[in-house]
């Protein structure tokens, strides 16, 4: 059924670029599937461990990059106060960027600024610095509804992400949709399956004892079904991220979320 719907949407998309229909009309954040304790942690800035990364990101936002470029510019030198300049940005991402000829997620945009404006090395995906800056920027949109666009040149990326989403993978031969569209609300042993929405990321996971990117979470799902994991920051995961963002349209940005 899901597969048929997806194929239908793909077909429609290809010939008319009619807006595709979401299988989950009313998305629900992953946090609503977690325990009270976790919800409390997420909602209390003094207790939310992800806020440590946000604080670190705030410092990095203002700091220049030692030894790089001639004028040692910081993010703040170009953008000013993140609380204003970055408000709403995360809610729109990933976006198509003409210069890159590709979609960029927040991590990609931050690194684009590092390389082209700060003349510094890009930050490694999942490095503390990139996690901190991403969380800080995303945090400026907290509570704002996601409104990702899949129009124009973003469309093929959306479609690639959707195809990935509905395709079986791994030795256990399951697709993302098998768990997160057909079985959300059910239990895998003692763990509730959520809709697999992306709005909580970057998130602090108790299991990681740390904060991680959306791509890290997606790799964990691939690992669980014994599939070859896509590299963090890879085209596959970027496309999937765009599909997930569209699927999450309307849900509030939670960064930093807290999860089990």
């Amino acid at each position, binding site marked *: 059924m899901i597969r048929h719907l997806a194929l239908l949407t793909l077909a429609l998309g290809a010939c008319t670029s009619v807006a595709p229909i979401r299988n989950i009309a009313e998305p629900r954040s992953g946090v609503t599937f977690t325990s009270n304790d976790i919800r409390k942690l997420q909602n209390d800035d003094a207790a939310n461990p992800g806020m440590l990364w946000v604080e670190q990101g705030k410092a990095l936002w203002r700091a220049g990059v030692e030894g790089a470029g001639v004028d040692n510019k910081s993010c703040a030198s170009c953008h000013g106060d993140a609380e204003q300049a970055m408000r709403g940005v995360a809610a729109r991402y990933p976006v198509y960027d003409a210069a890159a000829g590709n979609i960029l997620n927040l991590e990609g945009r931050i690194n684009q600024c590092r390389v082209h404006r700060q003349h510094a090395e890009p930050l490694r995906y999942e490095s503390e610095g990139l996690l901190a800056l991403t969380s800080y920027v995303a945090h400026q949109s907290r509570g704002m509804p996601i409104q990702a666009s899949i129009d124009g040149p973003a469309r093929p990326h959306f479609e690639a992400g959707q195809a990935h989403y509905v395709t079986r993978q791994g*030795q*256990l*031969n*399951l697709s993302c949709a098998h768990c997160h569209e057909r079985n959300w609300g059910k*239990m895998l042993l*003692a763990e509730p*399956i959520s809709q697999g929405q992306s709005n909580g990321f970057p998130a602090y996971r108790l299991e990681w004892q740390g904060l991680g990117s959306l791509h890290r979470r997606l790799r964990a799902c691939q690992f*669980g079904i014994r*599939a*070859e994991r896509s590299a963090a920051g890879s085209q596959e995961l970027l496309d999937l991220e765009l599909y997930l963002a569209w699927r999450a349209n309307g849900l509030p940005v939670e960064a930093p979320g807290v999860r089990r």
Partner: protein
Amino acid sequence: MTGALALKRAAPSLASGQAVRFAPRAAGCWLVTALCVGLPVAAAAQQVVFEGGAVPAPLTAVPADATRGKIVFVQREKGHCILCHALPDPEVRFAGNVGPPLAGIGSRLSAAQLRGRIVDPTQDEPDSVMPAYYRTSNLNRVARPYASRTVLSAQDIEDVIAYLLTLR
């Protein structure tokens, strides 16, 4: 990964068999099967033949062991079926509910039907949400340690069938 999803992190050597129908492979696989589950080499060469969604012929000649089958059903390193299926057993305190509870399954399905369902549920139900436990071909992006290996060995499957048949 947490509990649930770390399900199958176990050393693949514990769970290797070879589904010959899908991927006829030679000596290497026999070796794996023979080493890991102590089966006679001949077992690996056996054909898996479906009739409808069912597989009438047992996958091994060794008598099945229902007690061991329960371990296969419950253990994370093995089938870990409790991830999705509840059992009428007070020893099993937690179980998922992605699949139906299996109380009484032994009087609803025959050994052949159970075998088919476990070897490859998509034969009966193309959009099945259950993994195929004895299939190695037409899979997409299987992680390298598991490539060309089945989730369970032939004997694991025979044992789990024997166990399910006790649930009446």
